[in-house]
């Protein structure tokens, strides 16, 4: 069985494309087998919705009269980058408010922009012959500024480690609240719905792939940072953090429901982004990969009680067990918490499915594939 992007897009335009979510397709393949399923289904939609710290947005705030070259920029009390052209800036998800009490950061500024709320802008600059103004304080919103697009250097991690804590103290980590003495485990991947776990070697996902991003339309811009192909695999699927995507998309058109500021106690702020990637069923092999279920996806549990880059591994576990609420590993009975929302991952894959079925979204052919090789270097 072979199918082309053109054939799929033709069917989408005629509203005849058969689209299933990565969850729905599991049953179909179990019932009918890979060959029959590949013949029947044109596109499989994936989804994930969780903390993606390496996220942010480029904004062009517009020029005032007289104009200012902004060097220090603050949005709702959160510092934005002032090292690019006069009124361009980048607001990053983990930048935290200067205000006492915290609990608000760049991720929340982005959520508020998407929600259409007013944002308090304070900026200052050196004052030059061409940009005479030295300071400005005003209010902006998504509609009042020239440009606003999300650019996330590392999103949609292909799998991620699970975390536990061997010490006798509660730890507040970016993997959530970890109870003492191995009492709980936290994990983050959407498993069987996760974009990069349904196309583990990126046979179909490349630069230029059109995607669901934050409730609007986005694109794969590049390989994500820390793109790693050396993670150990089980049946061709990585058992820890591996490949990543750099994503881009217009903030206008996104929905607050899928762009949410997070405050991870003891760590800082972040942004939960809804990401959904459509996978064209170009061959039986692509379909076989899309049929992967939580039982077949594994991750390793690391001890975050040890503060080292090479934390000890407590054991290996699959996502079906993690989602059951309780696991037993290495003699410890541990309760489990997901940090990403499976309910919203479902919503993302479902929305993307609706868009394709109703001809609101067609598939793009990648301009170039993502790297076949990627390794991580250590900072010495």
């Amino acid at each position, binding site marked *: 069985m072979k199918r082309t992007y053109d054939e799929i897009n033709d069917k989408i335009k005629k509203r005849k494309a058969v689209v299933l979510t990565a969850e729905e397709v599991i049953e179909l393949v179990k019932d009918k087998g890979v060959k029959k399923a590949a013949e029947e289904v044109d596109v499989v939609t994936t989804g994930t919705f969780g903390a993606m710290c390496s996220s942010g947005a480029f904004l062009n705030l517009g020029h005032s009269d007289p104009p200012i070259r902004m060097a220090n920029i603050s949005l709702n009390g959160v510092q934005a980058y002032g090292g690019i052209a006069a009124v361009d800036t980048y607001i990053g998800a983990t930048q935290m408010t200067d205000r006492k009490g915290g609990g608000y950061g760049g991720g929340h500024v982005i959520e508020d922009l998407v929600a259409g709320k007013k944002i308090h802008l304070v900026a200052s600059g050196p004052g030059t012959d061409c940009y005479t103004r030295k300071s400005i304080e005003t209010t902006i919103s998504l509609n009042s500024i020239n440009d606003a697009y999300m650019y996330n250097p590392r999103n949609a991690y292909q799998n991620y480690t699970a975390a536990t804590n061997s010490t006798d103290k509660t730890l507040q980590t970016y993997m959530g*609240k970890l109870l003492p003495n191995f009492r709980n485990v936290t994990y983050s991947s959407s498993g069987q719905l996760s974009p990069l776990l349904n196309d583990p070697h990126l046979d179909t996902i490349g630069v230029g792939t059109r995607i669901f991003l934050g409730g609007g339309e986005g694109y794969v811009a590049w390989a994500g940072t820390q793109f790693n192909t050396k993670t150990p695999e089980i049946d061709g699927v990585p058992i820890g953090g591996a490949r990543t995507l750099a994503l881009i998309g217009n903030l206008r058109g996104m929905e607050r429901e899928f762009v949410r500021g997070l405050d991870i106690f003891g760590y800082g702020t972040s942004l939960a982004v809804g990401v959904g990637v459509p996978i064209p069923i170009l061959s039986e092999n692509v379909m076989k990969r899309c049929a992967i279920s939580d039982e077949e996806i594994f991750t390793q549990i690391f001890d975050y009680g040890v503060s080292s880059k090479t934390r000890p591994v407590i054991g290996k576990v699959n996502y079906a067990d993690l989602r059951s*609420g309780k696991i037993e590993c290495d003699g410890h009975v541990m309760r489990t918490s997901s940090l990403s929302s499976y309910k919203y991952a479902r919503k993302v894959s479902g929305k993307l499915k609706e868009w394709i079925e109703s001809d609101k979204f067609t598939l793009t052919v990648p301009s170039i594939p993502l790297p076949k090789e990627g390794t991580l270097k250590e900072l010495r």
Partner: protein
Amino acid sequence: MMIEKKYTLKFSGSNLHESVSYVLVSKFNIIPNVLRAKIDGSGGRMILSMKGSEKDITDAIAHLTSVGIEVETMDNYVKRDENRCIDCGSCLSLCPTFAFELNTETYDIMLDTKKCVACGFCLSACPTHAITLKMTL
């Protein structure tokens, strides 16, 4: 029939010497379980679970009230803002009384406020500040 209910008991400076557990066991046939308590010289509060027949529990409450302890049914002490909650599940493994539960059909995080003892442990685990407590001890 045995039932189990939770109450908050409010003590004042003048009745904090009253024995609660012993009297509930010996006179009212109640199985008491003190879930939380914060009481000092000027009084304080206790979260108490009582297991027994409906009549025994009613009689026990009447007794506690007669010695000046204010008794209130413990319910809805934790509140979740549905506009903020993203149903991630960060709270699931932290709740000592299993008040949060994952619905494995819909993947909603269900909250049973009757199980809550207002410990507040989930508050700092919620990345969207969706959970608030109506009462602290």
